[in-house]
Each structure stands twice: as C-alpha cells, then as structure tokens.
C-alpha cells in the first residue's frame, strides 16, 4: 500500500502521461451528452442567457479565431461593403433563400447584451443585434426530418485551409436569443468580429458563434459535413459539439 501511494504521488507524471492516450475515450466523450441532457432538463430548453445593461459591457471586446478571412472572394465582398453578399439558406427547406443584408435588417430585430464565453476561459460582454434565426427558418420553412442547422463560413482556418463551419440542433436554432447578428455595439459588425453576419447562440461557448456567415443549411444528420463532428473545432481538436458547458 505504501508503494501504491508512492506511485501515485511520485510517479504522477508517468501516470498522467499514460492518461493522455485516454483523453478521447468514448466514456469521456459520452459525458458531453450527459451534460447536455442534464442542463436542458434542469434549466429548461427556452431558459434565457443573462442579459446585461449597456454600462456592463466590456470596454474592449477582443477578437478571436479568424481576424480577417482575407480570401479573394471575401475581400471582393468586403470591398463594396458587402452589397453583393447574400446569405444562402438551403438544404432541407421548402423555399431556399438568398438574403441580402438589407433584407436581414428589415426583418423583426432582436438586440441583446450578452456575455461571450470563450472555451479558453475569458469572457467579454457586448451588444448584438439581428433577426432571430427562427424568423429566417420560418421564411424558408424546414422540411420534415431536418434536425440540425449548419453554418458555413467564409473563413478558411489554419495551415490546411479548412473552411470554418458550425452546427446547432433545433432546440438552440429556435431559442429566442439565437440571432443572426449584423450589428455589434450599435455599429455594423467589423471584420474582426465576423462581418457581415455572425451567429449568436448565447447558451453555448464562443467557438459556436460562427463568424463570416455565407450559407445556412438544414440537414438531417451531421455525417458527411466536414469530418462529421458538427464543427471546425469539433473536427480538428475534438471540442464538444454541445458547448453549453
């Protein structure tokens, strides 16, 4: 028993290094599902994320992830103020849409001052405005069998130039605070924060808040999109698809 305790204390490094290999074991990954189930059971599916007063906002809201997609296509769109940019809405919908910024701004709007929580641990508070995703999905009309909404982005990430994407289920897609934000702190989104349009899904972490939106796709399954795990970071690094914790 002394040797065992000695092992745990002094041989901790070896022990922990041995654990590295288990970091993506199915048992650990199933905990993600358990948290999603527990959270939604005890908080309610439509519970609202905290909203703040204007004076509670971060003095300076840092950017994260891609600061500028800087692809020829994106630069061309940005050059004339995204006048030629259109949000494509397709997949399992009855009426595929192609929406301009002006059209998105003419839909009923929701403004919310919320906290952006990065998976790394920091938080920043800002004001976001745009139509609820629900408005857009109702215009397009989801077909039976659609279970997830996938967000395809203009930025390609990292050395391998993999396009950023994210996805959420219909519970979050129809949550009242899930909006397509074109405005941040009362000004049109800057390039660093995802111009011209980004997703705000307020009860999840920062990597779900997809920037530089180009296309929204309703799907029955996440298989076959990217590597099938539902998002860029989920595919690349193994982050949880449900980022409510």
């Amino acid at each position, binding site marked *: 028993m002394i040797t065992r305790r000695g092992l745990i204390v002094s041989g901790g490094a070896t022990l922990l290094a041995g654990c590295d290999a288990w*970091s993506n074991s199915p048992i650990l990954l199933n905990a993600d599902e358990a948290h999603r189930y527990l959270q939604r059971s005890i908080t309610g599916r439509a519970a609202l994320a905290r909203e703040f007063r204007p004076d509670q906002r971060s003095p300076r809201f840092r950017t994260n992830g891609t600061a500028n997609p800087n692809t020829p296509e994106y630069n061309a769109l940005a050059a004339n103020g995204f006048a030629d940019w259109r949000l494509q809405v397709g997949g399992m919908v009855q009426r595929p849409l192609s929406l301009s910024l002006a059209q998105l701004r003419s839909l009923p709007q929701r403004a919310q001052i919320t906290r952006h929580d990065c998976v*790394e641990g920091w*938080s920043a508070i800002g004001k976001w405005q745009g139509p609820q995703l629900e408005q857009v999905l109702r215009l397009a009309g989801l077909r039976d069998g659609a279970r997830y909404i996938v967000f395809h982005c203009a930025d390609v990430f990292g050395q391998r130039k993999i396009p950023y994407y994210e996805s959420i289920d219909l519970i979050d897609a129809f949550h009242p605070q899930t909006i397509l934000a074109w405005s941040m702190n009362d000004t049109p989104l800057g390039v660093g924060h995802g111009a011209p349009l980004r997703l705000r899904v307020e009860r999840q972490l920062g990597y779900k808040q997809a920037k530089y939106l180009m296309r929204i796709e309703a799907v029955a399954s996440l298989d076959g999109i990217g590597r099938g795990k539902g998002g860029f970071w989920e595919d690349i690094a193994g*982050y949880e698809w449900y980022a409510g914790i």
Partner: protein
Amino acid sequence: MQVYRHRLITRIWHWINAIAVLVMIPSGLMIFNAHPRLYWGNYGANFDHAWLKLPQWPGWLTLPSTYDLAGARHWHLAFALVLAFSLLVYLPWSLLNRHLQRDLRIRRAELAPTHLAEDLEAHWQLRFHDPADPKAYNIFQKASYAGVLFILLPLLIFTGLALAPGMWPWLADVFGGRQSARSLHFIAMALLSLFVVVHLTLVILAGPVNEVGSMITGWWKAPKDAEEAA
C-alpha cells in the same frame, strides 16, 4: 486493538472522490493554461485588469501532459459528474447514518482556545489521537474534513457549473459574475490542493499502512500509546 472506524459508504466515497480530485485538479490546471489570468466581475479578457496572472503549469502537473484544451475538458467534465453525484449521494447518506453528527460535529468545548492550543501542541508532537477515545477525530481533522465536505467541494461544484453558459444564468450572479466564479473556482482548488498535501503528509506521519488500510477495510489499529493510556 482493532477498531471499526470507517463504514463502507465512507470508504467507497473516499476513493471515488480521491480519484475524481486526482483527475479534476490536473485537468483543471490544463484548462487554466489556456488563459492563465483571473478576473473579478462578469467579464474579463486580455485587455481587462487581471488580479492574478500566472505562468503556465508544467506538463507533469497537467492532464493531458501536453497542451490539449479539448482533452483536458473531456477529463474535467466527465469526472465533474463523478465528483458531484458521489457527493450528492454521500452527504445525505452520512446524515442518515449519523456519520456527520457523530464524527464531524464540532462541539463548543473543542473550540476553546486552551483546547485548540493543546491539540496543536499534540500535533507537533505527532500525537494525533485522544487516548480516551482514539478513533475520534481531533478538532483540526473535524474542521478540515467539514471544510472540504461542506464548503470546498460544494463551492468547486457550483462555481464550476456557474462557468457553463448553458447553466442557470443566476448561478454566476450568486458568485458576483462568471469571471468571479472562475476566480473562486481556482481559489477553492488551491485550498483543496493544500488539504490534499496536508492530508497525505499526516497519513504518512500517522502510519500509512494502518491509515490507508483502514480506509480500505474499515478496520483501524489504535496506536500503542493510546491503547496503553486507555
């Protein structure tokens, strides 16, 4: 003299909790490495004032041992369930089997300065047991076990939950905002780490075979000096 000291539920919980803590602290330190700055209030990021900035923890202290935020979160969030639900079972159970009332209840006389001084002196002389009742916990044991059970572990669990954007929004408010909750989570972890170090040290000083053995079998051998005095 063999004494039955730890009931089965206590032993089971002790080891489940020990494993959970052994996973939670190193994986938490890895998560901390992703942003090794702490703030007070609702928000806090690179441009904001941090009350504590630390260098990154070395790999031998973190789980995984190399920078892997996703992997550390898998460990941390999975064992968080183990930690929280085992405590959720253990605390009411220990209330019902009267373990808390019988073994951890601090009596007024124990808090008298003279008694505290005596007990402290006995600790320095490595006498940990009351000869008249060798299996009873001394005041420092009671205070530290109760502090871990009723303050540190619940604080760790609830400040941890407060960090989750999908959790009840009022929970972060209870702690003064999400970044305050994150700071308190870290402070509680530091205190729990201190407890673990002191606990293990005292186990070794008190006789590791007997102490660890009693937490496995339940049976504890009263030390000779206590036995003779009794």
